[in-house]
């Protein structure tokens, strides 16, 4: 069979979800929840199938293939096609997106059924799947684009979906607008990043004369030689884009708030796929980054700093999803650091495994939350279903969820032989060889990772049930647990794809990324990290699990760490800082412009001219005083002036 024919299917990875969403829009829920959910899952599933077919085709024909649908914009020397690029990198992303996506779609059929009831607006069920399909389409566009501009559509498109889904329950949240605010925050933070990407694109266009990946990468070295400054600017502005989309310092603040979205959204968008777009961007442009060491180290350090910074915050959180959110930020830091160092494969590897286990963790967390909610419903208790202090001892109530969660947590902590161990280890190994400082930072972050996961497992599943609802929690339906199990399998065995020695992923990606530094498995590092992970888990258990927390008890770490812990608990007050330093002055400045400057300044200047003229008119009116003799006086004055001018001029 000539598998190259499959390449022509590439555009359909985008179109199928689009068709799915259009059908769902047209039907708009008239044919029931089942239809909407299944249709959307099917659309996502077909994308998965196509992705697999593309992978198969690539297996036979590893060179990149571009499928063009025609011209999009062509002005002067700017010419951009609707082009889909099928290469090993994009297909990896497609596979991740569609596989995790499909599982989460299926999970959502069950989850959202409860969620819409719980939140009191069942009519929004279909809307959810429309957005989800739109997300899949945008994400596919992002990864399959063969030029920057098209990628940018996907880039902003996923941002839009994120905005819509975070604010899915737009009337809920703090003060009723909390969710909507969170969505807005996410979009604007992303826009700031997009600003960077836009500028990077302008620079690329004017320095390379094209926005096509091929054309740009092939000229990279010549341009780097000719305009090193431009190259530096390009890569740094791209980094700004990365920090926005992949929630790195300093733009990460939107991601914790983004947990306001329904849990499947957190799993799919804010853990598994969208947030990794930044990593993908750097990987895609590794040809550029490798030429600019300064930018590379900037990327690395941003990633590393984020990794440890977010990990510390994760330790101080009580919200089950917030812990995972900060964990995500931290793990994204790992990936960014990896691709920054040039360990592109390692970064991508971690991206894939992270998608599995973090997706799993979120979904399982969703299962926990709904379990608690059901429990709360049955015992008529009002509580925050996401607060870990209200949980405890759930392993008995919801065992399947517990086990899958445990697998995910262990994978995340980097326990061998689960997926996370291999991928994280690859990054650490690379760092230890090339950038020892980064290595130490990441190692500590890894320790923290295990620590907060240990803490979370202990708080949620072990010990005593600290609320009535927790005692009454029930297991989720099959449609949710099956994806959990499947993801658990992936999280457990995902490491296989780049198992040391086999290095499938590496050889696969090498077709696209070219010669990369081959990965090495360093036993010392592996054992060290494993030890750290185990240590972390152990401490976590010792602190939180051995002596089960009691309801209302303060966090055991609070006493020994003191101020530091309250810093972690309060997320180092970064939001407050931004609020004080950026948002408030910004609002005040805008208010000044709108109120004082525009209305009292510019507007009044215009009106003042009119009023001034009126005042002059009223002044001149006084000359028309009604007295004939005065009129005669003016006449004589005019006459005298005129005659004087004539005679004596």
């Amino acid at each position, binding site marked *: 069979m000539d598998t190259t024919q499959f390449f022509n299917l590439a555009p359909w990875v985008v179109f199928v979800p689009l068709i799915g969403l259009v059908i769902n829009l047209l039907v708009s829920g008239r044919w029931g929840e089942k239809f909407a959910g299944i249709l959307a899952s099917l659309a996502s599933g077909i994308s998965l199938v196509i992705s697999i077919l593309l992978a198969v085709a690539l297996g036979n024909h590893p060179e990149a293939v571009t499928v063009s649908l025609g*011209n*999009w*914009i*062509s*002005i*002067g*020397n*700017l010419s951009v096609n609707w082009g889909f690029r099928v290469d090993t990198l994009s297909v990896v992303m497609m596979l991740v997106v569609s596989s995790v996506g499909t599982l989460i779609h299926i999970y959502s059929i069950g989850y959202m059924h409860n969620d819409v009831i719980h939140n009191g*607006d069942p*009519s929004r069920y279909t809307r959810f799947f429309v957005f989800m399909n739109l997300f899949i389409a945008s994400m596919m566009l992002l990864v399959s684009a063969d030029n920057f*501009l098209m990628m*940018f*559509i996907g*880039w*902003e*498109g996923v941002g*839009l979906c994120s*905005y819509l889904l975070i*604010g899915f329950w*737009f*009337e*809920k949240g703090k003060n*009723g*607008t909390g969710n*909507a*605010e969170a*969505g*807005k925050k996410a*979009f*604007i933070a992303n*826009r*700031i990043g*997009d*600003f960077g990407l*836009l*500028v990077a*694109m*302008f*620079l690329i*266009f*004017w320095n390379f004369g094209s926005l096509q990946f091929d054309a740009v990468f092939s000229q990279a070295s010549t341009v780097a030689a000719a305009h090193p400054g431009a190259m530096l600017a390009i890569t740094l502005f791209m980094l700004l884009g990365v920090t926005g989309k992949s929630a790195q310092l300093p733009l990460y603040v939107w991601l914790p708030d983004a947990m306001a979205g329904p849990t499947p959204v957190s799993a799919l968008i804010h853990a598994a796929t969208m947030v990794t777009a930044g990593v993908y961007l750097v990987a895609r442009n590794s040809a550029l980054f490798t030429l600019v060491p300064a930018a590379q180290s900037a990327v690395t350090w941003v990633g590393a700093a984020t990794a440890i910074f977010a990990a510390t915050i994760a330790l101080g959180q009580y919200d089950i999803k917030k812990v995972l959110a900060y964990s995500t930020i931290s793990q994204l830091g790992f990936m960014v650091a990896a691709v920054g160092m040039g360990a592109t494969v390692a970064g991508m590897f971690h991206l894939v495994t992270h998608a599995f286990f973090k997706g799993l963790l979120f979904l399982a967390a969703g299962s926990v939350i709904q379990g608690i909610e059901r429990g709360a419903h049955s015992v008529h208790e009002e509580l925050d279903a996401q607060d870990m202090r209200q949980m405890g001892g759930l392993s008995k109530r919801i065992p399947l969820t517990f086990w899958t969660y445990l697998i995910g947590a262990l994978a995340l902590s980097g326990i061998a032989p689960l997926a996370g161990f291999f991928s994280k280890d690859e990054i650490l190994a690379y760092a230890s060889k090339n950038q020892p400082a980064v290595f130490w930072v990441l190692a500590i972050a890894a320790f923290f990772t295990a620590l907060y996961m240990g803490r979370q497992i202990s708080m949620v599943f072990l010990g005593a049930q600290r609320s009535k609802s927790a005692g009454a929690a029930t297991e989720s339906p099959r449609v949710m647990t099956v994806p959990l199990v499947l993801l658990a399998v992936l999280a457990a065995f995902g490491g296989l794809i780049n198992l040391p020695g086999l290095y499938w992923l590496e050889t696969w990606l090498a077709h696209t990324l070219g010669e990369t530094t081959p990965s090495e498995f360093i036993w010392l590092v592996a054992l060290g990290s494993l030890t750290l992970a185990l240590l972390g888990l152990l401490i976590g258990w010792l602190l939180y699990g051995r002596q089960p927390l009691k309801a209302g008890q303060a966090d055991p770490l609070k006493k020994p760490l003191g101020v530091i812990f309250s810093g972690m608990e309060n997320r180092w007050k970064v939001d407050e800082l931004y609020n004080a330093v950026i948002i408030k002055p910004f*609002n005040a*400045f*805008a*208010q000044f*412009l*709108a*109120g004082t400057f*525009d209305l009292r300044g*510019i*507007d009044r*200047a*215009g*009106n003042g001219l*009119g009023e001034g003229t009126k005042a002059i008119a009223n002044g001149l009116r006084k000359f028309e005083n009604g007295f004939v003799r005065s009129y005669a006086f003016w006449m004589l004055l005019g006459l005298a002036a005129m005659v004087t001018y004539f005679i004596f001029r």
Partner: protein
Amino acid sequence: MNLGSEPLIWVTFFPLVGVLVILFLKSSWKNAIRWTALLTSLAVFGISLWVLGKFDAANAEAQMVINLPWFTLGGNPIAFHLGVDGLSILLLLLTTFLTPIAILSTWKAVQENVKGFMIFFLLLEMGMVGVFLALDMVLFYIFWEFTLVPMYFLIGLWGGERRIYATMKFFLYTMAGSILMLAGILWVGLQYGGFDMTALTKAGGIPVSAQMWLFAAFGLAFAIKVPVWPLHSWLPDAHVEAPTAGSVILAGVLLKMGTYGFLRFNIPLFPQATLTLAPYMAVLGIIGILYGALVAYRQKDVKKLVAYSSISHLGFVILGMFALNQLSVEGALLQMVNHGLSTGALFLIVGMLYERRHTRQLEDFGGLWKVTPVLGSLALVVTLSSAALPGLNGFVGEFSILSGAFGSKVLGSPWFAGAATLGVILAAVYLLHMYQKVFLGPVTHAENASLKDLNVREILTLAPILIMIFWIGLAPQTFLNLISPAVEKLVSAVSTAAPLLH
């Protein structure tokens, strides 16, 4: 020449047919009047498609030219000279496209004196089309100034609370600019042989010293119309007080007359002055982008917010025009259309909200997406189009402008475009702010809980614009092909006039 077969004559003056018919209808036959106006404007749109059909996209020159001698002034002929080229074709289509939509939007909103309203509206359409087609400076001025009159009445008679203040302000501001343009036109015509645009552009040769003054005289008129910061303060008032259809046309078309004027007059006629002043104009454009966005963000009135957003959007157009390369100028032209569509649609939506709630204060809304999901969804698309989401129309224009300006030799520095790109962030800030205040969050006012969603007519008003939003966003080449030869000609004309560029 058989005038009956000249599409430009028809497209300009067909609205008068509608006016005539309406004149003979009783003013109490409101629906008949509405239908007449709607059908007339649809017919005009049809005629403009006929123009489009005859339009040769590869030709950069004016086409379907009608040139009838009218009278002479000081030995210089003034002619009834119409023609359409790449610079005007899109704006012509935009005008004829938006007019029926605007008329359709008045079905329920305008109940008083429908007859007068429609007559003024069709007269306005004639004036606007004339502005875009006129190739004689005097004729241009006539149409230009004439459009003031119907708009003056539209705001003054069917406007809101402070309509008198607003309409006077609108009239006086606009006239303040155009009187100097009249002096400029006379001066150019008398000093440099004629009022014919095509001839003047070819002849060139206006001395640089004179160019600066003339640029200022013409530019002021256009800058006020656009409006370029800081000459904008008439716009928010006019928009807030204008009836919905008036706002749509005001934002959609009338403001474009200003930007079009720059393209048609200032740049080709005074190339050296243009090159000298381009950075300053660009700076004004950028200030407009950022200032408009910041001020929009703090508005409490939705309509005012959208009005200030116009200032921001048109700042992009100004920047694009004065970056003066193929990319930016084409982007600017496309952005004119985009702004007409997006902002027009936003005003339509504000109008729909107003019809339901009789308020435009942001604080009076909230949570409407839940109550009126269709309106909420359509508003979302329009908002995003205005925020230049890739894949929608706004992005194509803004990207071309910014990327063009980024490498513009005339501006000579990427900082211009860099600063302007910040507007992309700010656009998200104020537009999402608006969307959230109106459509998201809980329903806080009891009156809002029972609002009706859009009816078929309202969906029909918005649907064509939405189609165009997607069309331009996904396949802009259809439109870009029409304009690129003319833009190429314009850009190369300016650069040949100014050897310092090469």
